[in-house]
């Protein structure tokens, strides 16, 4: 079964802070060269992390649900710079 997480995210309400991603990959080459189990690419419930053909990991925080999973996953390389979005930005749950 292929699941379109974008379909799910489309139902959500977001206020995107243009040009200010609240999560960043510290050193892209670590993802590409040193990480053998990029669990962020399957564990992130919003599929913010995707693996590119060259093995690097691309992060797009637009659909981020701010759960914090990726921050905890990346314990070995500690390569995720994680903070909450600025006040009022990010996902805005209607029901929660």
């Amino acid at each position: 079964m292929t699941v379109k997480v974008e379909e799910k995210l489309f139902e959500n309400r977001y206020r995107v802070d243009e040009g200010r991603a609240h999560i960043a990959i510290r050193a892209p080459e670590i993802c590409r060269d040193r990480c053998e189990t990029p669990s962020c690419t399957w564990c992130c419930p919003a599929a913010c992390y995707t693996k590119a053909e060259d093995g690097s990991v691309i992060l797009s925080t637009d659909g981020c649900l701010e759960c914090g999973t990726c921050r905890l996953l990346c314990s070995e390389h500690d390569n995720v710079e994680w903070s909450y979005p600025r006040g009022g930005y990010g996902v805005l749950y209607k029901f929660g």
Partner: protein
Amino acid sequence: MSGDDQAAAPSAAAARRAGGADLGAWRGVWVYVELERGRVHPVSWELLGEGRKLADHLGVPLSGVVMGPDDAATAQACDEALRHGADAVHVVRDPVLAHYRTDPYTRALTELVERNRPEILLLGATTLGRDLAGAVATTLGTGLTADCTELRIDDETRSLAATRPTFGGTLLCTIHTLEYRPQMATIRPRVMAMPKRDPQRTGRVIEEQVALAEDDVVTKILSYIPDADADKAQLAYADVVVAGGRGLGKPENFRLVRELAELLGGEYGGSRPVAQAGWVGADRQIGQTGKTIRPKLYIAAGISGAIQHRVGVEGADVIIAINSDPNAPIMDFATYAVVGDALQILPALTEALRERLGRRVAA
């Protein structure tokens, strides 16, 4: 604050509550012919086409209104209005009307309406049309339905049923002005069909006099900057938008997107990732929060269609997605999903359309 409600709306009493027998005193369909900088906006011809149908249905004449300086362009606009279906044209020729400014245009149009009492007044939903219609309707104290996409006559009430999108296009609503005249509406460009131009058609050109003096007009035009000089993307208003994403591989390949956009007379743009990578300027980013595009045709090449992108382009009438991944999210909300390499498909599409347009020109 110098304004006074009564002074600013001297004619309100005349139009308001034109109830009962008075309703009949308002007769005819009027189309405002938007003449700016010597050119008539095509929406005016579209409205004459639509106005013709309404007038015929009601059994009343259709008139155009032309306002401008006393020059050849104004004269030609009058003739063209007749050729596009008007029975008569009311024209105001005055140097004060050389460029659009709210005050003198509002004064002139308001006076003409009061003098001639049309039951319906249609304007294009352009920046000019919406600026002018809002001012005129307030001055007349009558109802105005903005940005309509469909017009009809309700036979029961003999009133104009104007349908328009609301809530950002999520819904449609139909609005009537029952007890006030004229019934005003602005209509979105390129919604109504362009009528057939009849070069033989003639009609009455009625010269109207309105006392205007440049000294009374506070607002002055300093200059006009045409868009071609400004090189700023007008994505929000474009009827055709072609956009590219990361699937194009490298910035050089963006040429393919620009070429197709140019051929179609549309605008080009890029997805958020390529805008961030600097392949296109930030003003051409599609899928930015709060910036939605609403073209008739949207072509997305090599764009996966993540959440923000979808929100940004969903208002497009037709979406053609070109992507090598049949499972890309955009393939779900597109109207047509072409599975294939954008670098092959884009030039083929440009070529096919160029041939087609070439044939038309030749014919």
